[in-house]
C-alpha cells in the first residue's frame, strides 16, 4: 500500500494503481476524457496532466504508476496552464453545436470548459470540417466534428463487447471513427454502450435524437426485465415539474431513454441494446378494464367473481408469472398457493433473431424473476396433457401462456397487464400494474437481488398483484 501525496495530502494507494485512479478514489479531482475504469489506458487526451513536485513539466496521471512517497500536484499554476491549453486544443476544431446537441447538460467537454478553461478560442482559422450525421449503425449516429478521438468507443468494441466493430480511419486531424464495413457494429448487441461512454455529443442514440433536453428528465432506478441477468438500469422520464400540459399525456409518462445503472455485482456499467429499448416492452398496449366473460365490469366486481370461482373449484392450478416481483411472489405464496398447484411459466421466450445467450450479459431466459419463482414452484410441465382432466380452475398470471393447452372444462381467471386476445375469453379478467408503476425486487439467475422503483402512477382501474392476491384469498381461507 504505497503512500503518495496529492497536493500535500497523504493517501494510501493500492499498488498497481495509477495516480489518476488513486486520486479519484480518494476524492481528488483530476479531469479526463479517454480514461475509463473498465477500459485499457489510452493516454491520448492529455487532459489529466499533473505535476510531480520538483519537476518543471507535466505528465499524464492516467499512466503514472503510484510509487512509495510520490508527491503530485493536481492544481499548480503549471498544471492549470497546461490543462487549460489541452482543453483549448480539444476545442480547437470542436463545433459549437451545444444549442443543437443532445449531449448538452451532461457533456464532459462542456463541464470542463466552464471549470478549467472558460476562454474563447484563440484561433482565427476555420475549423476542420468532417462528417455530421454519419450512420455508424442503424441505432447510432456519429458526428465526427464533435468527436475528440478519445477512442473509448473503439476500445469498448475490442475489449468489452469483443465485436471489434469500431476503428479509426486515416490519420492526424483527418482521423474518423468508423464501423467495420461488414456491419459487425449493427450486429453488436452491446453497441449502444458507446453512447454512454462518449464524453461528448459525437455518438448519439438515433431513437433519442432531439427527443428531449436531458435537464427535463430524471432517472428512476429499475431493473431490465429482458432476461435473467437483471441488469440495473435508469429509466429516464419527464421530471414532474416539467410535465407539459399541452402534451399528449402519454408523452408525460413515456420512458425517453434507458441507461445503465452501474452495478459491480451484476452488469458493471453496461447493458445490452434490448435494455435500451425497454419502452418497447413497457409501453405496449395495456389492459385497463376488468371483465367477466369479456364484458366490462368494475374491478371490485371482478375480484368478487374471481373469489367465488376459487371457492367453488375442486382442482385448482395456478400458472405463475416469472415477471412477478419477489414481493408479489411472496404474497402469492402466503395467501393463495395453499389452494393451488402452482407452476412457473416463462412469460417471454427469445424472439426470432434475438441473441440467445453469450459469455457477457445476455441470458437465454428472457424473464427477470424465474429465480425467485422457481425457488417456490416447479416449471410448467412440457408434456401433454399439461394438467389432468379433473382441473376445473386455472389462474393464469402474466403473459406467454398457451391457452390452447387448457383442459376444456376448466374455468379461467386471467391476470395480465397487457392487452391480448385471450383476456376477453377468460371467465374473469383482472388488469394488473406493471413494473414501472410500483416498487419491488427481482432475483437474478445468480441470486443477486436488485430493486426497482416506480416512475409513473398506475392507472386507477388496474390492480397491484400483491393487493390482489391478498384480496382473492380473503374468505377463501378454510378450504383445502
Amino acid at each position, binding site marked *: 500500500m504505497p503512500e503518495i501525496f496529492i497536493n500535500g495530502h497523504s493517501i494510501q494507494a493500492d499498488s498497481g494503481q495509477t495516480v489518476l485512479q488513486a486520486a479519484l478514489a480518494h476524492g481528488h479531482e483530476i479531469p479526463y476524457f479517454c480514461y475509463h475504469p473498465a477500459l485499457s489506458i489510452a493516454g491520448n487526451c492529455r487532459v489529466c*496532466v499533473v505535476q510531480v513536485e520538483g519537476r518543471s513539466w507535466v505528465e499524464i496521471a492516467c499512466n503514472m504508476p503510484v510509487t512509495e512517497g510520490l508527491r503530485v500536484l493536481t492544481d499548480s499554476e503549471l498544471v492549470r496552464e497546461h490543462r487549460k491549453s489541452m482543453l483549448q486544443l480539444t476545442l480547437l476544431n470542436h463545433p459549437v453545436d451545444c444549442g443543437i446537441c443532445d449531449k448538452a447538460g451532461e457533456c464532459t467537454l462542456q463541464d470542463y470548459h466552464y471549470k478549467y478553461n472558460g476562454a474563447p478560442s484563440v484561433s482565427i482559422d476555420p475549423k476542420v470540417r468532417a462528417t455530421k450525421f454519419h450512420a455508424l449503425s442503424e441505432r447510432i449516429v456519429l458526428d465526427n466534428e464533435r468527436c475528440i478521438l478519445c477512442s473509448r468507443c473503439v476500445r469498448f468494441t475490442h475489449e468489452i463487447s469483443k465485436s471489434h466493430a469500431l476503428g479509426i480511419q486515416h*490519420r492526424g486531424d483527418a482521423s474518423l471513427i468508423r464501423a467495420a464495413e461488414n456491419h459487425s457494429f449493427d450486429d453488436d448487441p452491446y453497441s449502444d454502450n458507446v453512447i454512454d461512454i462518449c464524453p461528448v455529443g459525437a455518438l448519439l442514440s438515433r431513437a433519442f435524437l432531439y427527443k428531449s433536453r436531458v435537464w427535463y428528465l430524471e432517472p428512476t432506478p429499475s431493473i431490465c426485465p429482458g432476461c435473467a441477468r437483471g441488469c440495473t438500469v435508469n429509466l429516464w422520464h419527464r421530471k414532474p415539474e416539467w410535465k407539459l400540459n399541452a402534451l399528449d399525456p402519454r408523452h408525460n409518462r413515456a420512458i425517453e431513454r434507458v441507461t445503465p445503472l452501474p452495478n459491480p455485482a451484476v452488469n458493471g456499467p453496461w447493458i445490452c441494446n434490448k435494455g435500451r429499448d425497454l419502452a418497447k416492452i413497457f409501453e405496449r398496449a395495456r389492459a385497463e378494464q376488468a371483465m367477466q366473460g369479456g364484458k366490462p365490469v368494475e374491478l371490485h366486481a371482478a375480484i368478487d367473481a374471481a373469489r367465488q370461482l376459487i371457492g367453488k373449484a375442486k382442482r385448482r392450478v395456478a400458472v405463475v408469472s416469472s415477471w412477478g416481483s419477489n414481493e408479489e411472489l411472496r404474497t402469492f405464496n402466503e395467501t393463495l398457493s395453499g389452494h393451488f398447484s402452482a407452476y412457473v411459466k416463462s412469460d417471454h421466450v427469445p424472439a426470432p433473431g434475438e441473441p440467445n445467450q453469450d459469455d457477457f450479459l445476455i441470458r437465454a431466459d428472457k424473464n427477470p424473476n424465474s429465480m425467485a419463482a422457481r425457488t417456490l414452484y416447479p416449471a410448467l410441465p412440457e408434456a401433454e396433457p399439461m394438467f389432468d382432466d379433473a382441473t376445473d380452475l386455472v389462474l393464469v398470471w402474466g403473459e406467454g401462456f398457451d391457452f390452447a393447452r387448457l383442459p376444456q372444462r376448466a374455468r379461467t381467471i386471467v391476470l395480465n397487464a397487457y392487452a391480448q386476445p385471450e383476456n376477453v375469453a377468460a371467465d374473469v379478467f383482472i388488469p394488473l400494474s406493471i413494473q414501472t408503476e410500483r416498487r419491488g425486487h427481482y432475483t437474478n439467475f445468480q441470486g443477486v437481488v436488485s430493486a426497482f422503483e416506480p416512475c409513473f402512477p398506475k392507472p386507477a382501474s388496474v390492480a397491484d398483484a400483491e393487493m390482489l392476491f391478498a384480496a382473492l384469498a380473503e374468505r377463501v381461507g378454510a378450504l383445502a
Partner: protein
Amino acid sequence: MPGKNLLMTFPVTATSHTLPDYRARGGYATLEKVLRQMKPEDVTREVTASGIQGRGGAGFPAGRKWAVVNLNDGQPHYLCANADEGEPGTFKDRWILEHAPHLLLESMLMAAYALQVRHAFVYIRGEFDLPYRRLSAAVDEAYAAGYWGERILGTDFCCDAVVYRGAGSYVCGEASGLLTSIEGKRGYPRNRPPRLTVRGLYQRPTVVNNVETLSNVVGIIANGAEAFRTVGTAKSPGTRLISISGHIARPGVYEVEIGYPWMKFIDEDCGGVLHGQKLKCVIPGGISTKVLTAAEIKDLVLDPTAVEAAGSSLGSGGMIVVAEGTCMVRLLQVMLRFYHHESCGQCTPCREGMGWLHRIIDRIVAGEGRPEDLDRMIGISRLNDGTTICGMGDAAGYATVGILAKYRDEFDYWIEHKRSRFDGNLECPRSS
C-alpha cells in the same frame, strides 16, 4: 576524409555488398569469436563500455538500453533494427543497407546473442526498394552460410531474421510506433511506462536500435571498447554517418569522426555551398532539429554535446545546408505540411497542433498573416513540447521555434508586405 572511418572502410563496388566481399574484409570472423568465446553479458558489457550513443536521433546510450533486458525472465525477447529512416534530410542508414547489409546482419546477430533474442527484425520503410532487395539477398546469403537459423556455427545459439516492410508512415520510425506496425496495425506510438525493453513487441521485452548504431557493434567487439573510444570524443565516441543535402556542392553520405570541425566538413569535404553561394544556415540533424545560422556554426564541431550547447541537436545526422537567398518562411511551410501529413492523430496536442501550425503558415504565405500568428505558433510549439505521446509533437515544435527564433524578420516581412522577401525561393540562387 573527415577523420577516421569505422563503417565506410571499403570502396563501394558492384559486389562490395555481397557475402564473399564482406568475408574478404574479415566479415563474420567476429561473430565466430562472440559465439565461441564470449558470454552474452560480455557482449553487452563491451557495448556499454564503448559508450556508443544511439544514432537514430534520440542519442540514448545503446548499452544502457540493452542492460534493461532481464536475460533470465524466461520469456521471448526481440531485437529490431530501425531502418525506417523517415526523418527528412536523412539517408545514411540506406548506405548501410545498400552497401554493407552484412555488417548490419552480423551486428544484429551479436546483439541477439547478447539479449537472448530468437527472432530479430529489421523494419525497413516501404519506399526503400533497392535497399530491401539488397538486404533480403544478404539475409538469404547469410542463412545459406549458416549464420542464421538453428545452431549457428555449430553452437547452441539459434536466431531467425525477419525483414518487415513498412508502408508509408513517418511515425513508424518512432520505436513504439514501429513495433505496433510490426504487429500488423496502424503505427500508433505508445505511452511509456512501460518501456519497450520491458514490454515491447507483442508485450515482450524488445530492443529497438537504429541501423547505424547496430552496425558499429561488430567493430566494437572486434577491436574492443577501448579502441572504439579512441575515436570521437569522450562523451560521444566513434563516428557519425552524416547525410548532407540541400544547397551543397557534393551531397551524399559521409562518415565523420565526432568532433570534426563543421565548416571544414562543409567547405572541404563536401565542396562548399552550391554555386559558390554564401552559407545562410544549416539544419544539423534532420528537420526536427533547430536551425543554426552560419555565424553560430562557424567555430562549432560536429559533436552532439557541442551542438546541444549551441541550442540544437545532431539528431539523425541529416544535415541540410541552406544558402543565402532562401526563403525561410517557405522552408518552414514545407516542414509543417510534412508534420501535418504524418501526425498519427492519437493525442490532442499533436493532432490539433500540427493542423493548426500548417493552416497558420499557409495563411501567412497566402498574404493573410497577422503579427500575433508568430507568437501563436511558438505557443503551439511549446504546448507540444513534452506533452505528447511521442516525440513528433516536440519535433515540429523545434523546427518552428528554431526557424522563428533566427528568422522572425522574414515572417514579419511577409506578414507586413504580403509577400516573401526572397520571392518565396527555395532553390539555391545561381548568382549573387
